[in-house]
């Protein structure tokens, strides 16, 4: 499985989590107020880069996520900038109330890394997967929610998150992702990026689904359907202008996310489109089911998150648009 290969992107070299580790080290080097908190997973989230370079600014709180979050919030109240790091499943599911009160409701300046988002952590299975993070962070209204899609956007968003004043959630995942962006690309909180132009259908994706959407767009182009691919990047705040323009220009929208459809990114995009410019929509994501332990490539096929699934949804949306005349 080589994401982005159909669309002509060079094969990925580094797992996204390793890029996160490097980016975290960069912001910790630039800003001495950055501190890193770990839940005994620094070797997995790659937050250990900071442990090695700046041990005095690194705290392993052990397998105790509620305490981890509370300690991080306390550090933030002292004017430090904590990056609180663990698997998204353990953080959100063990320490939701702590995140809610100590960070979200307090509007405290803490950054939370939810690693191993989605199902493509693969073989460790559903107990460790984070398939509900968009929904759960969605329930924390003061949180900015960022989802990088490639190494360049990961580096940029870690920096943006650190500089932003207020609670930020950032999703990381395990698979290597191809480089989609270049030096000229710009990133802003609340800004979606158009990564492929097209006017027949818009595919709004995030995370690993952006590369997969670009592959789908390559297949669709071969059939004469030009897809606009939008990398959402910022799930809150949403880039309403870019979303509405896509609906207006293309008349058919597909969303694609490595997350449950219920409470997911697509439902939030649909809310914007329904209000501003209703068009036929289709949704690619996880149905109401848990997945299983397996190779990521097998999981993407079985749970319908492939380029073929996105292309089929796009054809369907285009057909619905044409049927409406």
């Amino acid at each position, binding site marked *: 499985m080589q994401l982005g290969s159909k669309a002509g992107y060079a094969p990925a070299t580094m797992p996204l989590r390793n890029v996160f580790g490097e980016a975290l080290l960069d912001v910790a080097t630039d800003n001495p107020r950055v501190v890193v908190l770990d839940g005994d997973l620094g070797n997995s989230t790659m937050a250990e880069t900071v442990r090695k370079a700046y041990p005095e600014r690194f705290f392993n709180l052990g397998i105790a996520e509620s305490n981890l979050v509370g300690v991080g919030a306390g550090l933030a109240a002292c004017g430090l900038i904590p990056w609180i790091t663990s698997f998204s499943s353990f953080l959100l599911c063990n320490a939701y109330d702590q995140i809610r009160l100590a960070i979200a409701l307090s509007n405290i300046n803490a950054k939370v890394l939810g690693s191993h988002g989605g199902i493509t952590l693969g073989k460790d*299975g559903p107990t*460790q997967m984070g398939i509900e993070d968009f929904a759960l962070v969605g329930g924390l209204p003061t949180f900015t929610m960022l989802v990088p899609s490639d190494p360049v956007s990961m580096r940029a968003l870690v920096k943006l998150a650190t500089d932003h004043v207020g609670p930020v959630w950032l999703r990381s995942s395990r698979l290597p992702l191809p480089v989609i962006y270049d030096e000229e690309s710009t990133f802003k909180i609340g800004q979606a990026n158009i990564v492929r132009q097209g006017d027949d259908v818009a595919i709004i994706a995030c995370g690993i689904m952006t590369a997969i959407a670009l592959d789908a767009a390559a297949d669709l182009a071969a059939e004469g359907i030009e897809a606009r691919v939008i990398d959402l990047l910022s799930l809150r705040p949403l880039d309403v202008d870019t979303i509405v323009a896509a609906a207006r220009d293309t008349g058919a929208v597909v969303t694609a996310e490595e997350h449950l459809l219920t409470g997911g990114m697509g439902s939030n995009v649909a809310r914007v489109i329904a209000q501003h410019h209703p068009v036929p929509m289709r949704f690619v994501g996880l149905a109401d089911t848990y997945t299983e*332990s397996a190779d990521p490539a097998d999981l993407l096929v079985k749970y319908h998150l492939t380029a073929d699934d996105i292309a089929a949804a796009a054809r369907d949306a285009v057909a619905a648009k044409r049927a409406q005349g």
Partner: protein
Amino acid sequence: MIDTATATGDLSEVARQLRLDILDSTTKAGSGHPSSSWSAVEICTALYFGGVLRYRADEPWWPARDRFIMSKGHAAPLLYAVLARAGYFDRELLWTLRQIDSPVQGHPIHGLLPGVEATTGSLGQGLSLGIGHVLGGRLNGLAYRVYVLLGDGECEAGQIWEAAMAAAHFGAGNLTAILDYNKFQETGPIAREMGLEPLADKWHSFGWHVDEVDGHDIGAIIAKLRTFPARPDQPSILIAHTVKGKGVSFVETDFTWHGRALPPALAERARAELLQGGPVA
């Protein structure tokens, strides 16, 4: 029908076979937690094959069965190897660990396989489930015992201590925790990452009966477990001093093997060590 698993054959040979199954299943899967599994092989051998647990492999949900809850769920390869050897399911299933469409999940999921009592993998949860089984047994008029295997790193989780308090409060004399005290968590030695000591004193102060044992001495484990409960209304914990990666020399001495399967070439070295019972020259 076996109500009491009888200690048949040489239990240390059973332990060796379990280690080999853990090795083969994780190496074939290309991932998993062999070192965490090897750490607790003798504990599970004592429970399932040393006549401690009362179970019926052919009637896995027999209401009066003793419960075993693998709270450190990442030791799933050990649980599966034990259940297969105890006759709960076909041993061939072990080689489908972590593959698509297999019930042999990376971490245990309740009810997917006969004998898997609890969904675990997010650490800290198993002891609470055990208390629920104790209280349920009371209401259902059943006098089974409940055993929960905990990791030492896992004892950093607040929920463990909430459960410790509750178990004593409810006088859960038929609850036994076994602590796989291998002195390592994922990212390093426990003492460096999050000190737990004085650990026996902590459990004691929570109202538990505490005993300690060499966690690789099957006979000693069985003997200690037979002395529980010290009082009918007091939960017991057996702190088992273990070696993470036990049985494979180069894993025993390198904690960074946590959560990694041995690649095939190293797996052959490990097999040779397990077969001859020590490092190979």
